């Protein structure tokens, strides 16, 4: 049977033999005859459907009761545990579900089994009438004509100018939504204050870190000294200044010229804020010395000064120059030498200003 036409009646060869070109298409046979349901013919079935609908409405009542019992009988006092809340939540869910599904399925069953199910055909009417349209076009033309806007370009042009400028104040009033960026993004808390170098402290408790505590292979989440004591803008500062501290074998680091003294004894500190879109680069693969950002999987290689080796980031993580103070604590010898975090339009200028 597989041997039929390629789909085009002109090539099928059947049209010519049939010789009935006027009957090219099948005629619409009309709406199929209506088929009666059991409930239409059998009063017993109808009665049964009626009882089923009533039963469904009844389950809805039960559901409402379940909800009320769960709401009032389960107490969320101070001694409640997560298990109590889970139980209450589940019972409220069951109660609401029964209450709603009972009504819903009941109504739908009622409609499907007992309400008339004759399909009806209704004529579509044109969305618009020709008269209306012509009248509307005339009215529009008349209105435009009576304003004389086409004949008086001076009025038209000054109006256009005024209307174009009028929204400017509306834009201007949003000018105080935030401060100007200036160079806020270029600086972090790591800059030495009054000649005093900032210590590297543990996140979140803020205890300083001794170089001797950093064993090979270990990693520390670091915040600058004094961050926790800030009264305002703590999260803003933290969002820029969090650092990852790791210790490698010194010969595994390959510092570029000028960066040789940024590390101490194989201990290096890098910004934890991804240069892609700013997620914390929280995963340190100890064996491979890779840093991985869990948000978009940018991977940075510690042994190549955190160069991007995979993923959507384009720039290496900025390195924080560190040293050890007189008491043996790790300190930052300066702020980052470039803005941290995601790139922005003015970033290059900021970096140049920092290094100038």
């Amino acid at each position, binding site marked *: 049977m597989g041997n*039929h036409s390629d*789909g*085009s*009646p002109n090539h099928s060869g059947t*049209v010519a*033999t*049939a010789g*009935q070109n006027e009957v*090219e*298409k*099948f005629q*619409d*046979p009309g709406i199929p005859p209506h088929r009666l349901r059991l409930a239409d013919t059998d009063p017993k079935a109808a009665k049964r459907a009626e009882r089923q609908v009533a039963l469904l409405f009844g389950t809805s009542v039960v559901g409402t009761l379940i909800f009320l019992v769960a*709401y009032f009988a389960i107490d*969320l006092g101070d001694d*409640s545990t997560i298990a109590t809340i889970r139980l*209450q*939540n589940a019972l409220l*869910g069951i109660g*609401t*579900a029964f209450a*709603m*599904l009972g*009504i*819903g*399925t*009941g*109504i739908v069953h009622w409609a499907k089994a007992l309400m008339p*199910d004759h*399909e*009806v055909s*209704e004529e*579509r009417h044109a969305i618009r009438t020709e008269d209306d349209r012509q009248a509307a076009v005339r009215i529009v033309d008349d209105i435009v004509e009576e304003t004389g806007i086409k004949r008086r370009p001076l009025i038209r042009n000054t109006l256009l100018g005024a209307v174009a400028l009028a929204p400017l104040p509306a834009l201007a009033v949003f000018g105080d939504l*935030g401060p*100007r*960026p200036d160079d806020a*993004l270029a600086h972090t808390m790591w800059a030495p204050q009054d000649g005093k170098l900032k210590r590297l402290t543990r996140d*979140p408790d803020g205890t300083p870190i001794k170089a001797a505590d950093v064993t090979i292979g270990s990693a520390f*989440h670091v915040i600058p000294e004094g961050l926790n004591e800030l009264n305002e803008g703590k*999260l803003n500062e*933290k*969002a820029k200044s969090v650092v990852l501290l790791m210790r490698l074998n010194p010969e595994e680091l390959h510092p570029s010229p000028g960066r040789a003294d940024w590390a101490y004894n194989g201990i290096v500190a890098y910004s934890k*804020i991804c240069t*892609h*879109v*700013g*997620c*914390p680069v*929280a995963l340190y693969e100890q064996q491979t010395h890779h840093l991985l950002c*869990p948000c*978009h999987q940018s991977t940075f290689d510690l042994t190549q000064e955190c160069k991007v080796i*995979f*993923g*959507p980031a384009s720039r290496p993580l900025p390195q924080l120059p560190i040293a050890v103070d007189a008491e043996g604590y790790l300190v930052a010898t300066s702020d980052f030498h470039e803005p941290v975090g995601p*790139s*922005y*339009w*003015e970033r*290059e*200028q900021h970096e140049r200003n920092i290094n100038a």
Partner: protein
Amino acid sequence: MSATSTPSAPTFVAKTKGGRITNFVDERVGGSGILREFGRKVFPDHWSFMFGEVALYSFVILLLSGTFLTFFFDPSMAETHYQGSYTPLKNVEMSVAYSSSLDISFDVRGGLFMRQVHHWSALLFVASVSVHMLRVFFTGAFRKPREMNWVVGGVLLILSMAAGFTGYSLPDDLLSGNGLRIIDGVIKSIPVVGTYISFFLFGGEFPGTVIIGRLYMLHILLVPALILLMIVLHLFMVVVHKHTQYPGPGRNDGNVVGYPLGPVYAAKAGGFFFIVFGVVALMAGFFTINPIWNYGPYDPSPVSAGTQPDWYIGFVDGALRLMPGTIGNWSVEQVWFGQVFTFNVLLPALVPAGIIFTVLFTYPWIERWITKDNREHHVLDRPRNAPTRTAIGMAGFVWYCVMWAAAGSDLIATHFHVSLNDVTYWLRALFFVGPVIAFIVTKRVALALQRKDREIALHGRETGRIVRLPHGEFIEVHAPLDEYKRYKLVGFESPSPLPAEPNAHGVVDKKEKRRALFSMWFFEDRVAPATPAELAAAHGHHGEHEAIESGESQKTLSH
């Protein structure tokens, strides 16, 4: 008109209680016209028409549950120390917004349930809007006169995502905070104004202390108001156009076949609201969504692995993941004239979404230009009967799904024990190849289904009964279709390519030539519906089989 003022005139007196109420209302506000128009308005019935209803109903559930949540939520980013009943976070420093979200979860009776209802119905809302749009696309329901309603639908899709995202960020937990962090990074990549927009949005540096309050205002006022406005427009146009219907016997572009609004359709649709609500309640009762207490308050330093955005943001997040930041040693981020062009963020964040929504909004006009079809369409296309459109839709869908899958690249890697890098490389390849494969495969499948329809229309359906003829040949008996079922398979149009036509000046211009090329591409591969002549020929050819068939059916009848 009223009974008292003109007692002599024969007046219509309502006999039933319902009638008297109707009369009461009509005498005061004249509502009878509306009732006359709508009371028995015919709506076609099909399961695929319910996606729009799900969207509408989940929006209603969102309004109800969301109102409850506003009574308890405090969108302040002021610092506080948690004192509620969830012990693991006791005395932890957090924002008031996060603390009040925890209170809703643990100290307000039914609060957790309401939060879960709200979040689940939000996910369902965006999902049902999306699936509804897919249904409209694949059935060609966007064609004249419904192009503007398609655009309204697209706006609703964007608004639903905006509503979702602004709400997702409100609890100020670690997960949503990282989401905002990503948004901030994307905004900063915008040339010239990006840094300013970021500072204006966050009221200074990220995260600042105002963003939650601002998102709250957008989430509970501006976005829902716009959604409501668009829904009104949308439904208004549905009424003006009347609903589309699937092709079938008795259905044509001049009529609408279905059930009257009152009572059957109203009962089914109204009952369906309760069913949607019930299903959402079940999900909220049994499936945890967004357990913010596990994430902790927002802190720019920690992040948990395997974090996912809500599903509808996934495709943007996935695109961000797929874009390589460096190609070899060449950095995708470029510094030109001392300014930074962050293409590795800008391109994936804007281009795929931009392409998807541009094509979505303009598609009705693109297709109308190619086909030069300016008629009104009220009968839907079965997707197989518009193979090229279906293929375009599937290409777009697969493209979206590749990006969406990329948002879970780390989870794919950990669940299937494959290398994360390989997953990304494969998805990068699929990003380009997937849509092409999808287009070709879909088109072939659609054409094959059309051929199958032809076969069934001409030769009947397979009965599975094998008969041995006297001379030893085995045949399978085919049962002919009744005319109603057959019409469903043959009652469609299969336009052929429209060659370039000269314009009013008798010139075939370049644009028209291009259109003709597109038309060729669109309609070149086609399967024409079976014709009565072909049916007659097929029957003549299988005459001997039919004799057996009728004999068989008589046998079936006799016992």
